[in-house]
């Protein structure tokens, strides 16, 4: 960690803006691009560090891409570096989405536009279904996890409770189950 001058901060911002433009879709699409830009081109972090940051970025709150950007930025230039890298990675989204949103809003009354979005919504169903299957593989590995899945699924379909409640309850349930599984062993989390 070091104090960066204006030029270095500018380079941090631009590098992450580039990563933001090239990340299409979710956080996973970002990993190969980060490897090329941040590890190979700039040498700011090693491959191992990147893998660590990415793993933590997945299990801490928030968007994975933003978490990873903050991590690398703070490694490079402390708190300011973390903030600058984050602003860089969201910058292209802000510009592109605002332009598109303006255009779509002004055409949304057209019949063909409504038909197009009718078709697109069907596609969104299928994409979400595929994403859920992918999440399922990493998340539901034993009967306890299955019970948590079923409980939260039933509750969120049937009730109007805030998702915050499920997050807090499920996190607590995970800790309780972990303690029941291996009570006194230090340092061993549930597998």
């Amino acid at each position: 960690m070091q104090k960066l001058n204006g030029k270095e901060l500018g380079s941090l911002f631009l590098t992450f803006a580039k990563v933001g433009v090239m990340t299409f879709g979710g956080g996973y699409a970002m990993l190969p691009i980060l490897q090329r830009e941040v590890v190979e081109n700039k040498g700011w972090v090693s491959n191992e560090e990147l893998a660590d940051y990415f793993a933590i970025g997945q299990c801490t709150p928030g968007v994975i891409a933003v978490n990873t950007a903050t991590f690398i930025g703070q490694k490079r230039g402390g708190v300011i570096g973390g903030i600058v890298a984050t602003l860089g990675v969201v910058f292209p989204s802000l510009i592109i989405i605002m332009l598109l949103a303006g255009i779509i809003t002004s055409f949304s009354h057209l019949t063909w536009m409504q038909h197009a979005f009718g078709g697109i919504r069907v596609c969104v169903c299928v994409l979400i279904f595929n994403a859920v299957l992918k999440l399922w593989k990493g998340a539901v590995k034993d009967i306890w996890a299955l019970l948590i899945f079923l409980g939260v699924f039933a509750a969120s379909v049937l009730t109007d409770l805030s998702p915050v409640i499920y997050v807090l309850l499920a996190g607590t349930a995970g800790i309780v189950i972990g303690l029941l599984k291996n009570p006194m062993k230090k340092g061993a989390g549930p597998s």
Partner: protein
Amino acid sequence: MIYLNLFYEFFKTGLFAVGGGLATLPFLYDMADRTGWFSSSQLADMLAVSESTPGPIGVNMATYVGFTIRGIPGALVATLGLVTPSVIVILIVAAFLKSFRDNRFVNAGFYGLRPASTAMVASAGISVVALALLQVDQFHATGALADLINWKGVALAAVLLVLTRWVKPTKGLHPILFILASAVVGVVFQF
């Protein structure tokens, strides 16, 4: 005060959505229900646009929702709200990197969180299915069960499911191609 509210809602989303961009979806549905700032059918369209444009999905969604509610300042406030918890959490975690990864309570907490997050995304998916594949209004008008189901939509969904999961040459293709193709099908077959 709308901006303060907007910031608070997205801050909450950023703080509790664990596991990447799509994990923000249940929070956005909840937000639509409670605040009436936007409708759930708008949300499905925004998701399609967010998946088809550069940038992390969660950031794109926040920008789009913010823009829909209050134009450019709304987009900026929503996006800042979403990323602020990430920046704070990551800066704290970075200080205790090693002990965070090896902590059994942290691991156990995430063991419980992952199935909950999967369940919430699945439940949000069901809302999109209801929107895209069912025609509740028409069913209420005619009372005929066959009118409840949007058969054109179901047919497209079946084709997309096969293409994205089982057909070798197409299943690795980028979602944007399926979204664009669905838009064309929607226009041609008047969805």
